[in-house]
C-alpha cells in the first residue's frame, strides 16, 4: 500500500485538505467525505452517476484521480442543501416527476446548474447534450428535460404553473372504433405532459388521480444518503467475488492459502468451506418452483461469471488482490449456448449432479416442459383455409439498473443477521436466505432502502447469501457490490427464446387456431425459467380470441449468463412474435393491419381462457367452472388517440414515405396491440398498517417495495384519499421485514393493484374507528354519516372536528387508544391493462441504420392514481423496450465470454438519442382495483419491438424476425428481400 498524499481543493466552496491514496479516484474520496450524491455506476465513467462540477464544468469523478483535484474547485449537489427547502433546480426536478429512483439525480441537477450558468435559456438539444452522459433507465429523460426547462424558466424569473396532465375529450364512445380523420390534428404541447382521457365512470377525488409530487422527491433531489451504500457500519469489510473464466468446468481444486495469508484478508469462502444447501434464487412465493439447482458455492461452474469464491477484506484493493491469489484448478468441459443446440443429442449435460430434483430431462438439458391447450388445435389447423407458420428469435439483454446489486450484512447485538440490500423482494429474500445461512427466519432482518432501479434483476436472492456467509465467518459487517462487468455477466438477464407460431385463419379473417411453441433459454440455472416462459404462453395466447389454442414450451439449460426476471417477464418476447406474426398474416390476406387485429382482439366480456391453465397455480382442464373475463377496456380509445397522435394517414402518403430530398431514406409507421396482466391472482399478496399520530398525520407501513417506481407515493395517495387528508400527512415507510407487514414484492405489475388495495383497506379500518370517535366528539348517533375531508370529520349538520383533535382525544383524553388499521389483500382477479403502441421509423436503406423519431403509447391502466408517475413508468418502459428492439445485445466470444460488459459497446439509449415520446392515459373504471386502478409498469415493455419491426416493414417491405434491428441485420434483410 502506498503512503497517502495530501490534496487540497475547494469542496462546495470550503477549502479542504485531505489525505488520500494516490490511486484513489475522486468519486471514492468524495463519498468518503459524505458527498453521497456522487454515485457508483461503473468504473469507466460512462454512467455519469458520479458526475461533479470540476471548476464549474461537468466531469466524471470516477475517471479523475483525486490527486488531480489539487488546487481546483469541486461542487456536488450537497452545495445546494443549505436549507430544508429545495433549490429551484431541485424543485423543478421534483415538480415534474423527473426523479424516479433518483440514483442519478445529483448528476442531473449539477449538469443543469452548469448549463444554466452558461445560458439562461438552453435549447432542447443543449439540454439533451448535457444529459447525454448521465444514463438513466427509468425516465427516458422525458421529465428530466422538462425539469431543466422549468428550472431555467424559474431562474429567469418567470412564473411557472403546476405540472398537470392535459385533459382531452374522448374520440370514441368507449366501445366502438373511431373513424380516422386525417384532418383532426393531435393537441399541441410538450410530450412530457401526459394526455389524460377521463372516464365518466370515475368519481371526483381529492388526492387520487392528482399529479402529486413523489413522497421521496426531497431526499432524492438533495442526494441525501438514502441508498444501500450510503450507510457504512463501523469496521465494515469490503468483499469481492471470484467468478468463473470458463463457460462450463468442474472445479478440481481450490487453494486459498495465499489469499488468506495476505494482510487484511478476513475470509475466503468457496465450496470447500460453505455448506452445500440447494436452492433456487428467483424471488418468488413459497414454495419456490423447482428445480432447486443452485448452491452458494458449487463444485462446478456453468457460465462465464459464475460464482467460484468470495473474499472479505479491509479494503476493496486488498479483496481484489486476494481474489487474484486464489488458485483454482478447472477441468474445462464443452459448453453450449444456443437453446436449440442444447436439446440435441451429444450436447454437454449441464446439470449432472445427483442432488437436483425435478429437472424434466437432464440428459437433454430440458428443465421444464410446459403444455396447455384449449380446444383441438391440430384439428382446427387441418381444416383452416389459411395456415401460417413463422419462427422468431429474441435475444439476451440486461436490465441495467444504474445502481448495481449491492448488499451489506452484519450481525446485530441480538445475534440476528441484518441485511441492508438492494432488493425488490425483501420478504422472499429473508425466507430464502435463512436455510442457506442455517438460521431461522426470525433471526434475519432485511432492510430495503431506496433502490437505484431493479427492473426484475433484483427480484432475486442474489448477494444476500454471500454477505450473510461472510458476516458469519468474520463477525464483521460485510459489503458486496457488483462491478458493472459482474452486473452483466454475473447477475440476471432476459431469457432468449425461439418462438414458432402456427395460426389458422378462416375466410372472414377470424383466428381459428393458434399454436405456439417456445424454446426458452434459461441459461445454467432454472431461476424464473418456469414462470417467465409461462408468462410468454399467457401473453402470447391471450389477447386475441381464438377457439383453439395450444402452448408448448421446452425450457432448456445452456451456458449463457443467467436469465431471470426482467420487467415484462416473458411478455416482450411473446408479443414481439405475436404482433409480427399477425401483421404478416394481415398483409398476406389483404387486410388493413389494424382492422385485422381488431377483428380478433379481446374486448370487454371476452374470456381469458389460457391463463388459468398456466403458472404456479395452474388448474387442469375441467377443474374450472368459470373463466376470467375482461371487465374493463379502453382499447378503441387507445387506438384512436394513438393513431391521431402519430398521424397514421402518413402511411399512405408517398411523399412522406420517400422524401425527395433524402433519397436513401424510407419512412414508415408501425402498430402493436398490447395486453398485460395485473399481478398474479391468488398468489401476490400485500399488507399494510396505518396509525394515527398526535397531529392528525399517519404513519403507514407497507411491505411493498418502491424501486423508484413511485409505489410509496401512490400507496400514500390511496390512503390519503380514504382518510380525507393530504398526501404529506401520510408518512410512508416501506419494506423492512422487522417493521412492515409482508408483501410478495415489486414484480408482476402488482404493487398499485395489490398493495394499493391493502393500503385502501387498512385506511378504511382506521377510518371506521376515526368516524366512531368523531361521532362521539360531535354528538352524532350514526358514525357512518360522518365524512372525512380536508383533514376534518364532518357531521351531516356541517359541524366538524379536526383530525388533530380526534387524535389528541384518542391518544390523551378519554378512553385512550391507538387508532390503527391493518389489512392485506390477495386478488382473485388479474384485470388486464391494454395499450396501443405506435412507432415512427426512418430507415437508411443504404446502411440499414434505423432511427426512431417518435413513439406513442396510449394505455388503459384503469384509473392512474398518479398520472405523472404513471406516465413516467410508460416513458421509461418504452426506453428499455426500444433498446431491446434496436441496439442492446450481449456479444460473446466462441468460449461464451461476454465481450461488451460496459455501456460503450453495450448500448443503452441516451438523452441525446431518445425519440419524442407521447403518453396517453385512457381511463377506465376497474371496480376490482383500488379507486379503479389497473397495472401500468410492464405493458410499456411489450409493444415497441413489434411496432418498430412493423414500421420497418411498412417503410421498406423487409420483415425481420430476429431482434435487435442493428444496421447490419436490417441491411441484410433489405438485400435478400
Amino acid at each position: 500500500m502506498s503512503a497517502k498524499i495530501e490534496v487540497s481543493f475547494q469542496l462546495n466552496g470550503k477549502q479542504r485538505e485531505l489525505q488520500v491514496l494516490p490511486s484513489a479516484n475522486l468519486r471514492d474520496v468524495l463519498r468518503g467525505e459524505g458527498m453521497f450524491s456522487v454515485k457508483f455506476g461503473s468504473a469507466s465513467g460512462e454512467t455519469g452517476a458520479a458526475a461533479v462540477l470540476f471548476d464549474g464544468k461537468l466531469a466524471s469523478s470516477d475517471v479523475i484521480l483525486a490527486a488531480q483535484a489539487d488546487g481546483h474547485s469541486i461542487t456536488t449537489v450537497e452545495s445546494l442543501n443549505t436549507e430544508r427547502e429545495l433549490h429551484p433546480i431541485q424543485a423543478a426536478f421534483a415538480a415534474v416527476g423527473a426523479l424516479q429512483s433518483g440514483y442519478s439525480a445529483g448528476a442531473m441537477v449539477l449538469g443543469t446548474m452548469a448549463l444554466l450558468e452558461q445560458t439562461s435559456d438552453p435549447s432542447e438539444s443543449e439540454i439533451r447534450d448535457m444529459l447525454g452522459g448521465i444514463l438513466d433507465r427509468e425516465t427516458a429523460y422525458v421529465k428530466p428535460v422538462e425539469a431543466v426547462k422549468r428550472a431555467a424558466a424559474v431562474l429567469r424569473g418567470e412564473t411557472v404553473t403546476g405540472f398537470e396532465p392535459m385533459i382531452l375529450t374522448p374520440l370514441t364512445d368507449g366501445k366502438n372504433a373511431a373513424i380516422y380523420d386525417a384532418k383532426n390534428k393531435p393537441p399541441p404541447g410538450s410530450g412530457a405532459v401526459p394526455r389524460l382521457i377521463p372516464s365518466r365512470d370515475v368519481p371526483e377525488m381529492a388526492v387520487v388521480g392528482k399529479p402529486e409530487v413523489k413522497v421521496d422527491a426531497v431526499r432524492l433531489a438533495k442526494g441525501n444518503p438514502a441508498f444501500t451504500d450510503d450507510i457504512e457500519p463501523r469496521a465494515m469489510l469490503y468483499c469481492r467475488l471470484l467468478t468463473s473464466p470458463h463457460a462450463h468446468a468442474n472445479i478440481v481444486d481450490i487453494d486459498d492459502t495465499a489469499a488468506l495469508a495476505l494482510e487484511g484478508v478476513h475470509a475466503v469462502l468457496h465450496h470447500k468451506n460453505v455448506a452445500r444447501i440447494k436452492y433456487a434464487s428467483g424471488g418468488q412465493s413459497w414454495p419456490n418452483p423447482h428445480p432447486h439447482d443452485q448452491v452458494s458455492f458449487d463444485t462446478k461452474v456453468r457460465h462465464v461469471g459464475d460464482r467460484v469464491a468470495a473474499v472479505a477484506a479491509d479494503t476493496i484493493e486488498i479483496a481484489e488482490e486476494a481474489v487474484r491469489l486464489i488458485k483454482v484448478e478447472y477441468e474445462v468441459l464443452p459448453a453450449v449456448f444456443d437453446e436449440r443446440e442444447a436439446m440435441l443429442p451429444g450436447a454437454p449435460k449441464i446439470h449432472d449432479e445427483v442432488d437436483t430434483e425435478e429437472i424434466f430431462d437432464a440428459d437433454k438439458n430440458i428443465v421444464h416442459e410446459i403444455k396447455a391447450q384449449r380446444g383441438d388445435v391440430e384439428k382446427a389447423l387441418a381444416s383452416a383455409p389459411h395456415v401460417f407458420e413463422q419462427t422468431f428469435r429474441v435475444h439476451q439483454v440486461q436490465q441495467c439498473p444504474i445502481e448495481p446489486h449491492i448488499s451489506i450484512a452484519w450481525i446485530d447485538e441480538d445475534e440476528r443477521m441484518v441485511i441492508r440490500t438492494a432488493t425488490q423482494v425483501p420478504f422472499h429474500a429473508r425466507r430464502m436466505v435463512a436455510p442457506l445461512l442455517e438460521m431461522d427466519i426470525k433471526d434475519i432482518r432485511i432492510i430495503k432502502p431506496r433502490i437505484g432501479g431493479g427492473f426484475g434483476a433484483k427480484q432475486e436472492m442474489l448477494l444476500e447469501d454471500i454477505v450473510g456467509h461472510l458476516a458469519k465467518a468474520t463477525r464483521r459487517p460485510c459489503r458486496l457490490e457488483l462491478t458493472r462487468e459482474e452486473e452483466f455477466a454475473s447477475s440476471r438477464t432476459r431469457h432468449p427464446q425461439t418462438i414458432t407460431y402456427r395460426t389458422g385463419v378462416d375466410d372472414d379473417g377470424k383466428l381459428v387456431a393458434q399454436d405456439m411453441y417456445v424454446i426458452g433459454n434459461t441459461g445454467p440455472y432454472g431461476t424464473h425459467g418456469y414462470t417467465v416462459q409461462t408468462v410468454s404462453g399467457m401473453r402470447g395466447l391471450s389477447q386475441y380470441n381464438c377457439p383453439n389454442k395450444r402452448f408448448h414450451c421446452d425450457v432448456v439449460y445452456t451456458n449463457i449468463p443467467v436469465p431471470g426476471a426482467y420487467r415484462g417477464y416473458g411478455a416482450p418476447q411473446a408479443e414481439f412474435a405475436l404482433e409480427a406474426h399477425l401483421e404478416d398474416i394481415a398483409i398476406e390476406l389483404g387486410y388493413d393491419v389494424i382492422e385485422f387485429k381488431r377483428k380478433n382482439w379481446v374486448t370487454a366480456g371476452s374470456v381469458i381462457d389460457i391463463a388459468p391453465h398456466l403458472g404456479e397455480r395452474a388448474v387442469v382442464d375441467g377443474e374450472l367452472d368459470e373463466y376470467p373475463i375482461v371487465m374493463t377496456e379502453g382499447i378503441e380509445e387507445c387506438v384512436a388517440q394513438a393513431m391521431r397522435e402519430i398521424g397514421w394517414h402518413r402511411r399512405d402518403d408517398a411523399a412522406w414515405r420517400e422524401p425527395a430530398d433524402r433519397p436513401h431514406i424510407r419512412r414508415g409507421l408501425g402498430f402493436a396491440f398490447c395486453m398485460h396482466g395485473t399481478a398474479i391472482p391468488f398468489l401476490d399478496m400485500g399488507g399494510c398498517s396505518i396509525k394515527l399520530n398526535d397531529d392528525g398525520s399517519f404513519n403507514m407501513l407497507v411491505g411493498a417495495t418502491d424501486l423508484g417506481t413511485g409505489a410509496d407515493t401512490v400507496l400514500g395517495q390511496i390512503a390519503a384519499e380514504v382518510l380525507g387528508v393530504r398526501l404529506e400527512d401520510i408518512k410512508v415507510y416501506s419494506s423492512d421485514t422487522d417493521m412492515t407487514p409482508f408483501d410478495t414484492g415489486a414484480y408482476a405489475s402488482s404493487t398499485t393493484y395489490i398493495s394499493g388495495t391493502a393500503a385502501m383497506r387498512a385506511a378504511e379500518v382506521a377510518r371506521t374507528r376515526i368516524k366512531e370517535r368523531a361521532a362521539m366528539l360531535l354528538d352524532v348517533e350514526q358514525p357512518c354519516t360522518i365524512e372525512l375531508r380536508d383533514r376534518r370529520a364532518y357531521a351531516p349538520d356541517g359541524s366538524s372536528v379536526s383530525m388533530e383533535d380526534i387524535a389528541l382525544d384518542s391518544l390523551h383524553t378519554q378512553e385512550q387508544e391507538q387508532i390503527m388499521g391493518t389489512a392485506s389483500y390477495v386478488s382473485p382477479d388479474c384485470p388486464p391493462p391494454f395499450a396501443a403502441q405506435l412507432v415512427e421509423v426512418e430507415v437508411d436503406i443504404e446502411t440499414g441504420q434505423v432511427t426512431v423519431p417518435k413513439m406513442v403509447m396510449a394505455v388503459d391502466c384503469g384509473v392512474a392514481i398518479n398520472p405523472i408517475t404513471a406516465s413516467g413508468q410508460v416513458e421509461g418502459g418504452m426506453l428499455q423496450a426500444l433498446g431491446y428492439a434496436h441496439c442492446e445485445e450481449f456479444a460473446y466470444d466462441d468460449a461464451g465470454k461476454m465481450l461488451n460488459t460496459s455501456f460503450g459497446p453495450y448500448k443503452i439509449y441516451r438523452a441525446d438519442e431518445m425519440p419524442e415520446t407521447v403518453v396517453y392515459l385512457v381511463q377506465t373504471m376497474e371496480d376490482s382495483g383500488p379507486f379503479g386502478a389497473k397495472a401500468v409498469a410492464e405493458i410499456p415493455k411489450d409493444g415497441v419491438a413489434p411496432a418498430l419491426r412493423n414500421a420497418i416493414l411498412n417503410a421498406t417491405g423487409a420483415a425481420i424476425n430476429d431482434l435487435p434491428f442493428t444496421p447490419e441485420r436490417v441491411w441484410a434483410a433489405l438485400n435478400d428481400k
Partner: protein
Amino acid sequence: MTVSMPSSVDETLRLLSDDPAATILAGGTDAMVEINYEHRRPASVVSLRRVNELATWSIDGGTVRLGATVPYVEIMNSELAAASPGLAQASRTVGSSQIRNTGTVGGNLATGSPAGDTIPVLAALDAIVEIASVRGIREVAVVDLIVGVKRTVLEPDELIVAIRFPVASGPQEFLKIGPRNAMVISVASCALVINQAERSVACALGSVSPAPLRCGDAEEFAAANIDWTSDGIRITDPRTLETFGSMVADAASPIDDHRSTAAYRKHGIAVMARRALTRATTS
C-alpha cells in the same frame, strides 16, 4: 503510487526522464479507466493538468497548432471549429459532455485506439505531432505515430506537446456508422478533407484497421475528377461518387468481429465515403 503535478513542459520532461515508467495523465478519461480496472497499476503518475502551455492553441498563417491537452469542448466552441471543421465534427461525437470537457486530443492519439475519433481526421489532415523529451523535439506524422492497435512510436519518456495541421481550405467531413444516432464506438468512421488551394483530396478511415488508413488511389481519383472552380467544387458525373466510394472501400481490409462482419463494414465504408464526397461537393 506517486503523483506528480508539474507546471511546465520542461519539468514534465525531466520527471519522465527520471522515471520513464510513469504514466502520463492528461484528461484521464482513458488512463483512469485502466487504473480503476487495474489493467494498469502504475507506480507513478505524471499529471498534465497544471501544464498550462499544453492547453493552448494558436492559428498562425495557414497552420493550426493545437496543444496536446486542449479539451474537445474547446475545439468545438472556439475559432478552432471554423479552422478545422472536420476535427470539430469528430470532437462533437466523442463520448458525452463530461468526457468532452476533460478528454484531450493528445490522449486520443497516445492511446492510439482504432476507434479514436480524431485520428482519421488528423490523418486526413496530414497532421504533424510534436513530440518532446529531454533529448529534444521530434516530429512525426499522425499516420506514422500509430503502428498497431493501441501501439504508438512514442518512447516511454516522450510527451506529445502539440499537433499541427493546415487551416481548412475547403470542405471537411466526418461520418460514422453504428447502431444509434450517436455512439461511443463505431463500426466504421470516415474523414474527408478537401484542400481547394492545393486541389487535393484526402480520405482516412477509422475502426477498420489497427492503424489509421489513408486511401491514396481513391484520393487521386477524386482529385482528378473534381471540377475545381474558383467558386466551389463540383462533381458532374454521379458515377464518380460511386467509384470513389468503392475505391475507398477497397483500400480497407476490415475484419469480422462481434460488432460487424467485414462485408458490412466494407459496404458501409463505400456508402460513407460516397456521402462524404457528395456533401463536400454539393454544399
